[in-house]
């Protein structure tokens, strides 16, 4: 729930500053707002907190910012502590008393007692800020997987932070420039990495870390890291698969159970795939009054999964509400998608999520469970299988049969079915040696995505110089990475970078909170994540069968048709969405050569040909689609943030 923002240091007009920041993120908290500020006193810097509330737990109470009983601590908090009931009982047993029944006070008391060590006790999706008057410092922290966002910057000696960057842009003097390195990273890795954001000078606190800021500066530390066993040990601790299955079942049940804690009804999303179906089935067991479920349907058969959604709804005995998403729908919401995502995107898949959250909200639901995270944690993505086949091919480069496995991986890509073994091997870089390349699993995706940089202008290329986003990514890998099993290396890359950088943010939190809806993800419960990381690789990807153990856990809960269906990645129409019929006016204007030349980022001549190709070709191809959406969204981003440097809540709702 919620959004917050604030500062540490001097501001000229604290009230006005805090209200402006709260206005910018008002969509995150339609149910109320609160402010706290204290002026500078001696050597204690001034501090301010603003909070906008989406009331889910203890709606009539638990107002924020919340002060400790002695007034020395002030907390602004976005998210949920799912195990707050247990933590509260512990605290009561140790003599604490509570004024409210919610999780906010639990977090405040736990910090009061333990300081930063409280983080390891929290099971939740959270970002929060605590003004600690005892230590005269500001404490910021973010959940382990990166579900809830937190951005910060320093300007004129004052430290500012907020749930979304747009709140920071309301501060007089904080400018808005596109970070060109971030743009290169997006056109290579789909999102900026590390602390970088699309906004030059604005940073994002990384998942699993906390920050202390005081008069002398900031310091960031990590309190949790995704870890895997050494490859040599990865097979040793197999234990008993039946025992693992039982443990998985227990964890799934509990992770879902504590995510149903709310004082408002909790719904579930049904994509038609295994993961969301399993979550909905688990949730339905705890919802005797019936579970509300929600789905997206597409006009395009290659994207639509509504037949499976209906099967699952029938199985659960729920009436599933569906929103249909056409190409035109994607085009019409896309400018708003970019304002909310706050970064250029190379895919349109977030857009239907915004339509879905609108549907959920219209039905009076504020909280939904989804299956997000299972593909990272239990190895469901095609990229894991692809890497395995590429390694298999590389071991016998002359094989005429091994590369044919690539056809089996991508039955939904018609272009591949006609290719010879030799062509397939070439496309997937199947003969490249896996030795010493930490990004082996991701090289084809990286190379294909980076193909879209063909359209970068000469000036942009010159400014980027020899910068290499893939090398930059390698520099962020932990030392222990090289000791992990190849599947675990690939899982780490997905879970540590794409998951927070794109899936949970652009496609997750930002699209849900755009309509005041909170997503909850049982598969990202850190107990499940840690359990799955320790599982032997073959219990996750068994041969080329993905999510092996999870599938076992699902049997008995789901119809066989859902468990055994061919996995369909979630995708949405890309360039075609914008070019149906006559094409939207705003899209055409974003590709206007005069505008492109003035922006200076893309080559107007080749970009013009790209537009023509996407407009006329049946299947423009991966690179053209990537470039089209990337260029369009970069233009929309510049328009949303550069032209209007102070977007308001009203602007967002337009």
């Amino acid at each position, binding site marked *: 729930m919620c959004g917050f923002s604030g500062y540490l240091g001097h501001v000229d007009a604290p009230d006005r500053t805090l209200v402006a920041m709260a206005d910018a993120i008002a969509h995150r908290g339609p149910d109320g707002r609160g402010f706290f500020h204290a002026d500078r006193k001696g050597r204690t810097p001034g501090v301010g907190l603003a909070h906008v509330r989406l009331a889910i737990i203890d709606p009539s109470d638990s107002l924020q910012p919340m002060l400790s009983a002695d007034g020395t601590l002030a907390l602004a908090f976005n998210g949920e502590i799912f195990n707050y009931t247990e933590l509260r009982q512990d605290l009561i047993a140790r003599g604490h008393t509570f004024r409210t029944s919610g999780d906010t006070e639990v977090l405040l008391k736990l910090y009061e007692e333990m300081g930063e060590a409280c983080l390891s006790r929290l099971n939740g999706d959270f970002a929060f800020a605590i003004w600690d008057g005892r230590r005269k410092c500001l404490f910021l922290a973010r959940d382990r997987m990166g579900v809830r966002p937190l951005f910060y910057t320093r300007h004129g000696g004052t430290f500012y932070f907020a749930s979304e960057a747009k709140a920071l842009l309301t501060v007089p003097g904080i400018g808005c420039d596109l970070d060109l390195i971030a743009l290169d990273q997006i056109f290579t890795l789909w999102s900026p990495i590390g602390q970088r954001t699309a906004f030059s000078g604005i940073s994002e606190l990384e998942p699993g870390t906390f920050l202390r800021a005081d008069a002398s500066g900031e310091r960031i530390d990590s309190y949790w890291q995704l870890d895997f066993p050494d490859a040599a040990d990865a097979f040793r601790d197999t234990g008993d698969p039946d025992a693992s299955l039982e443990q998985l079942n227990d964890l799934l049940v509990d992770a879902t159970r504590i995510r149903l804690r709310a004082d408002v009804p909790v719904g579930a999303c049904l994509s038609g795939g295994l993961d969301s179906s399993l979550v909905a089935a688990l949730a339905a067991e705890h919802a005797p009054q019936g579970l509300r479920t929600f789905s997206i349907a597409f006009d395009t058969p290659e994207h639509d999964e509504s037949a499976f959604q209906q099967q699952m709804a029938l199985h659960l005995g729920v009436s599933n509400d569906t929103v249909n998403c056409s190409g035109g729908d994607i085009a019409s919401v896309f400018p708003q998608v970019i304002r909310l995502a706050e970064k250029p995107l190379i895919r349109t898949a977030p857009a239907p999520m915004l339509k879905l959250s609108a549907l959920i909200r219209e039905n009076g639901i504020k909280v939904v469970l989804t299956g997000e995270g299972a593909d990272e944690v239990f190895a469901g993505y095609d990229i894991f299988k692809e890497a395995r086949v590429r390694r298999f091919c590389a071991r016998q480069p002359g094989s005429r049969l091994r590369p044919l496995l690539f056809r089996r991986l991508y039955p939904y890509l018609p272009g591949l079915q*006609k*290719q*010879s073994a030799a062509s397939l091997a*070439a*496309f997937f870089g199947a003969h490249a040696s896996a030795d010493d390349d930490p990004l082996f699993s991701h090289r084809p995706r990286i*190379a294909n995505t980076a193909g879209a940089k063909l359209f970068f202008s000469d000036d942009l290329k010159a400014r980027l110089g020899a910068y290499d986003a893939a090398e930059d990514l390698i520099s962020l890998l932990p030392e222990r990475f090289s000791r992990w099993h190849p599947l675990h290396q690939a899982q780490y890359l997905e879970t540590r970078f794409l998951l927070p950088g794109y899936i949970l943010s652009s496609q997750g939190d930002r699209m849900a909170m755009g309509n005041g809806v909170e997503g909850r993800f049982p598969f990202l419960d850190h107990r499940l994540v840690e359990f799955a990381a320790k599982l032997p690789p073959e219990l996750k990807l068994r041969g080329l069968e993905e999510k092996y153990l999870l599938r076992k856990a699902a049997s008995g809960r789901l119809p066989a048709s859902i468990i055994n269906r061919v996995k369909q990645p979630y995708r949405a129409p890309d360039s075609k969405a914008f070019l149906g019929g006559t094409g939207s006016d705003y899209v055409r204007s974003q590709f206007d050569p005069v505008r492109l030349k003035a922006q200076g980022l893309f*080559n107007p001549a080749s970009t013009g040909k790209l537009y023509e190709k996407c407009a006329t070709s049946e299947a423009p191809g*991966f*690179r053209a689609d990537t470039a089209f959406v990337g260029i369009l969204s970069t233009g929309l981003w510049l328009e949303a943030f550069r032209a209007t440097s102070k977007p308001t809540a009203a602007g967002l709702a337009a």
Partner: protein
Amino acid sequence: MSTVFASFVRAFIVESFLFGDASAAPADGESLIAAGIIDSTGVLELVAFVEDCFSVTVEDADITPENLDSIEAIATYIQKKSGRAPLAA
């Protein structure tokens, strides 16, 4: 080998896969796949181009990197299939 076939192929590649950006054009012997110029959809476009412009039929078994992975290889393949002698460019 610089032939009329090769120059046709080069022009097609620059126009269709490099969107007119001749500065990114590959050398005649360079692998188009390794350079990221064509992907699996691109190969099918390339096959359609060869069939349409040179009146040859590309058998499925011919769709291999050996025949199609460089400007030079494609030009040689067209020459072989069409039975025409290459004209010097």
